[in-house]
């Protein structure tokens, strides 16, 4: 499809002819990424790592477009939006509404994002790249939604160990003493496990970690 991978270019690029082509490529990449994220109406649970990488790509594009000044929220064309754009913006709005809420029932953020309407637009995903329509206007609606999404995210600078570990569960460190006893010593393995309080989940449920709330509960219990 494209001759080379996309690269960043300075805003003061002299080649005026090349710049619009790059913007189009970048926009297509953005559309492609959003479609990929949206295609989690699959039967099987989507791969989290892949979703994260695609979402990060979308964020990078957005950051660059913001720097370029091309990330503009155009006046929404209320009447003429393509149905698929409306679908995308609805789902993103759902995500932003839930962003502040505690872990929902499913606990799976990928499923959260796709919890919106399952009906596909008549044209299918390919209709998102609609050469006929004005790209700016149609994109305005979900660009604005993306803004709302990304505002809820913290921006972290890569490479800083402290930030990397900011969310790491501290339960690990508290298990340290148990772990030292467990690994390498057959005798203390059972002792170590029995010394810890049992999980809060009911007897038959085991360690169910697919609900947001018990997730917290297990972590807190282990810390004590």
């Amino acid at each position, binding site marked *: 499809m*494209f*001759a080379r*991978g996309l*690269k*960043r270019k300075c805003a003061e690029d002299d080649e005026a002819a090349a710049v619009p082509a790059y913007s189009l*490529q*970048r926009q297509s*990449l953005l559309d492609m990424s959003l479609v*990929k994220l949206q295609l989690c109406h699959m*039967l*099987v*649970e989507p791969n*989290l*790592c*892949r979703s*994260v*990488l695609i979402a*990060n*790509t979308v*964020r990078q*594009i957005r950051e660059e477009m913001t720097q370029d000044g091309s990330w503009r929220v155009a006046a929404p064309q209320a009447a003429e939006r393509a149905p698929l754009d409306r679908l995308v913006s609805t789902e993103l709005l759902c995500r932003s509404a839930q962003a502040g809420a*505690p872990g929902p029932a*499913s*606990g*799976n*953020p990928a*499923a959260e994002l796709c919890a919106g309407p399952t009906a596909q637009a008549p044209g299918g995903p390919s209709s998102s790249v609609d050469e006929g329509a004005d790209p700016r206007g149609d994109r305005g609606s979900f660009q604005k939604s993306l803004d709302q999404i990304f505002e809820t*995210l*913290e921006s972290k600078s*890569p*490479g800083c160990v402290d930030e*990397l*570990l900011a*969310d*790491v*569960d501290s*339960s*690990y*460190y508290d*298990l*340290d003493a148990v*772990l030292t006893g*467990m*690994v*390498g*010593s*057959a005798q203390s*393995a059972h002792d170590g*496990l029995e010394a810890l309080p049992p*999980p809060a989940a009911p007897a*038959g*449920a*085991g*360690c*169910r*970690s*697919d609900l*947001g709330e018990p*997730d917290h509960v297990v*972590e807190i219990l282990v810390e004590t």
Partner: protein
Amino acid sequence: MEEDIDTRKINNSFLRDHSYATEADIISTVEFNHTGELLATGDKGGRVVIFQREQESKNQVHRRGEYNVYSTFQSHEPEFDYLKSLEIEEKINKIRWLPQQNAAYFLLSTNDKTVKLWKVSERDKRPEGYNLKDEEGRLRDPATITSLRVPVLRPMDLMVEAAPRRVFANAHTYHINSISVNSDYETYMSADDLRINLWNFEITNQSFSILSWGPRTGWLERRVLSSFQPHQCRNLYLLSYPKHLLAWHHQQAQPRVFEEPEDPSNRSFFSEIISSISDVKFSHSGRYIMTRDYLTVKVWDLNMENRPIETYQVHDYLRSKLCSLYENDCIFDKFECVWNGSDSVIMTGSYNNFFRMFDRNTKRDVTLEASRENSKPRAILKPRKVCVGGKRRKDEISVDSLDFSKKILHTAWHPSENIIAVAATNNLYIFQDKVN
């Protein structure tokens, strides 16, 4: 050509010894056991097939220990998660052998959600001469029994049975991508994208969360756990995020971060994706770590975190194709990498059924192909070459002709000998080094 001579020196002597075509399904994992006597494969249909190496016999010197099917069993079945209305695939993500402690073999196999401990045992005797049953197993009328006898064991045809001994379920929200047995052989760990759980083999309804990130923060952030591997002797845990590699000793509060500074001239929207680590392996010596990202394999010294000591280009000609590979999702393919027994050669897969080997000492590398069309049994594998531009030579293949649906993601190297197992979609190839 000088290059041909170089490649011939490393491993042009690999013979294609045996090829077992599985009937239906794509092989999703390959693993030798600790002695190399057994080779287990898991496939997309939830089946496990175990191969056993033939004992070398004096009568058939030329059959230098081929691998034959030893046992086949259905490890996982497809399930449906009613809470989320999602299917749970039965595809086997990982198999790990336990060290052999008695006559039976034990292995862990896992799909996205459930880990199972399987016992594989042989039966070659059966008891005969029951008192209360006749030879067909029908009960005898006790009134007709006039004398008692002791049942005796008589030989029978060898039967290999696989039985599930433990099922460890309901502990992972996301997809389990790796499992690893601890050096005490009493506990093991399972890891998904955001959590590592510690299990005791005897306890199936409890696991302990060693590391976890809450879903609300982990979701759209950069950090997703992609694979981990505890080092057997030193309790050092490797976690690979996209981009970063952490080595964590459980007694330290902070992990060490292995990260190579980014080359700004190569930066693109795909930089993060292609630098995402898809596999990480300790060397057998424990001194080095190997990481695989989309285009390269890197070897790190455990004591040096700021850059790898070696970087090998697997298929750099794909760098100009990243946008297409993003579109068809190939850029998310997770290739594995393996060390040979002496840590002198590393191997990883590529597309078009190619796989690559790099000799760390001589710095030479070779590209080989696993396909039936291009190799006959017992023939020496011919090195392949990809033409990146300019004139294509006779045996070369151009980048645009590569078949991206034929990808070699999973490979394994015998722990001590030069025997490799290569999974090419739904075919397993076993290659042996020619001796003499």
